């Protein structure tokens, strides 16, 4: 059975070119770029090249604005902690209710240590009310941290407007762009974002590598304190192989995103259309236009997500769910709940997230396999349009 992988917002395959680019640094070229000898020192230029590639993809002015980290979470944590340390007199953070735990749980933690946090609401389509943001900023606000695109629904926030609001009010704006980078093209030269976080394994690089963009002139205080690596902004010997891999992944993304995102969107739309046509009582979660081209969050009423997920798994189809059973806690997706999606729908939510490595045949296969699964589970379910047995 061939695997159909449609969980790319969770993680993505390493692109073949990325793997090839990494290989020498996992075997022969193991030198430390900080070394004085040539064997190590020559590695430096590969790290620098990767930095340029990341900067190029983001449309950053200067490669020095890129700091390599270990993952998206470290990047997000660094952005927020660094800013709070740089503005010690300010004690207010603005974020949203639908952030990734990398931001959300850090904010909850900071709340306990004396910070005030405003969690902006979203509407039924997962969109923000920017007036709410304008009202929330005050003289005490240190940072606005709002994601670029949501990992569960794919909803894209208007970061350009948000960045402008923050700039005018002289507040640092950080965006968790882990889901956006490599999926939609954008240029930081045109977006006044101060700090941006990204993660390698979401764009076909390896796990264990992330990056942080810090605009020149933005106050910075390191989160991981150690050696002089990354211009003394992030201690720890460079993860050279993964950095080189991330560089290659960014190069591939820069070359392909514009074109591939159109193709991916076409497949995603076909998938949605097929499902909506064949299965009743289905709902698409999130703004259907302002959305990542690869993500589809669909709810199937009356049935539970884990059951759907495992039945699809049986067929070799890998997806994820926002149901309580799969979240590892008792409550289902905080994102869908913040959007006011009724519980009857939240529990039955499935996220399909595609990549440029998916094919139309795979989409057709899912459209074929899914309806009987939903029908079977609905037959087992006590909810829905079933009659109450008479006594």
């Amino acid at each position: 059975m061939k695997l159909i992988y449609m969980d790319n917002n969770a993680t993505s395959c390493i692109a073949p070119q990325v793997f090839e680019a990494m290989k020498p640094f996992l075997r022969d070229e193991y030198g430390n770029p900080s070394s004085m000898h040539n064997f190590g020192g020559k590695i430096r230029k590969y790290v620098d090249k990767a930095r340029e590639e990341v900067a190029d993809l983001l449309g950053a002015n200067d490669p020095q604005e890129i700091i390599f980290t270990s993952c998206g979470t470290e990047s997000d944590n660094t952005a927020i902690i660094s800013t709070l340390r740089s503005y010690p007199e300010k004690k207010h953070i603005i974020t949203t209710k639908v952030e990734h735990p990398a931001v959300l749980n850090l904010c909850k933690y900071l709340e306990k240590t004396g910070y005030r946090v405003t969690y902006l609401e979203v509407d039924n389509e997962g969109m923000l009310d920017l007036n709410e943001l304008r009202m929330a900023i005050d003289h005490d606000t240190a940072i606005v941290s709002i994601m670029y695109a949501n990992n569960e629904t794919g909803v894209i926030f208007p970061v350009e407007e948000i960045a402008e609001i923050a700039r005018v009010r002289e507040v640092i704006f950080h965006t968790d762009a882990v889901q956006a980078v490599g999926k939609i093209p954008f240029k930081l030269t045109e977006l006044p974002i101060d700090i941006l976080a990204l993660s390698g394994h979401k764009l076909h690089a390896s796990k264990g590598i992330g990056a942080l963009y810090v605009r020149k002139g933005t106050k910075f205080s390191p989160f991981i304190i150690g050696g002089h690596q990354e211009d003394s902004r992030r201690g720890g010997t460079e993860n050279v192989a993964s950095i080189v891999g991330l560089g290659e992944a960014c190069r591939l993304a820069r070359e392909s995103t514009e074109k591939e995102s159109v193709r991916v969107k076409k497949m995603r739309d076909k998938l949605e259309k097929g499902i909506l046509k064949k299965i009743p009582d289905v709902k698409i979660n999130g703004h259907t236009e302002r959305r990542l081209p690869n993500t589809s969050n669909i709810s199937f009423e009356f049935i539970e997500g884990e059951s759907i997920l495992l039945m699809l798994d049986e067929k070799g189809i890998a997806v994820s769910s926002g149901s309580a059973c799969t979240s590892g806690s008792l409550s289902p997706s905080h994102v869908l709940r913040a959007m006011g999606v009724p519980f009857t729908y939240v529990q039955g939510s499935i996220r399909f997230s595609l990549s440029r490595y998916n094919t139309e045949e795979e989409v057709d296969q899912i459209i074929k396999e899914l309806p009987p699964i939903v029908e079977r589970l609905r037959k087992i379910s006590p909810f829905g349009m079933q009659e109450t047995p008479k006594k």
Partner: protein
Amino acid sequence: MWDYSEKVKDFFKNPRNVGEIENADGLGDVGNIVCGDALRLTLRIDKKTDKILDAKFKTFGCASAIASSSALTEIIKGMTVDEASGVKNKDIADFLGGLPEEKMHCSVMGMEALEKAIEDYRGVKVSGKTAEKEKVVCKCFSVTDAKIIRAIRENNLKTVDEVTNYTKAGGGCGKCKPEIQKLLDEFWKKQKTKDVKLETRRKKKLTNLQRISLIQDTIDREIRPKLRADNGDIEIVDIDRNRVYVRLLGTCLGCPSTEITLKNLVESKLREFVESDIEVEEVK
């Protein structure tokens, strides 16, 4: 990814006895959509012999909920009602070759549905003592004030969001949220007056010996069973006047909610049953 046994996987993929018996002799409905599982169990019972001739289920839930429900029907078919009333959730889990710890509630749901179906068959009124007085607060999920108050009391709920998590109330359109807040306010106000009364009743001082023995009793009776239910445990390290030094064991070790366990369970129970100024400290 859950570590399901082969039997769980089999009963999920090929569930036995799916459906609903028309004009069932016993009907049990439990669970709700918030926790992600619900079960309707229907029984056909031979009234002369009290034998369960057939059992069918319909389940909303994850793989282990479906497997547990199906396993339950297989277990009880052919049993007499008396025999079936002795079936516990552990029997269901054992039948399936075990369930992941986090999924044990699926087997509990099976047991509850069975209890309700048997009560229904025997004509025992389930829990309708104040049914006519109850008022529906959340219209989206038809949750009554009685259910909300019970959830507040049993789970020590303090906020509307918590009530929503436990009962679904307020999880739909959200219009009833102010009413839920009112119920919370009223409940905790009453509770406060109760606490004050309890306080005055407990004014008499305990001797050291009395205090130590009472603390041990309370831990054995009120606290340890709850921790053991989650494969945890507790031991008393020392008692110094009102300070109780304890060590959490088993799954409690490294549990992220240790702090909550200590405050909301251990300390609050000791304050309730021993003395109101007890302080609990964890020894690691």
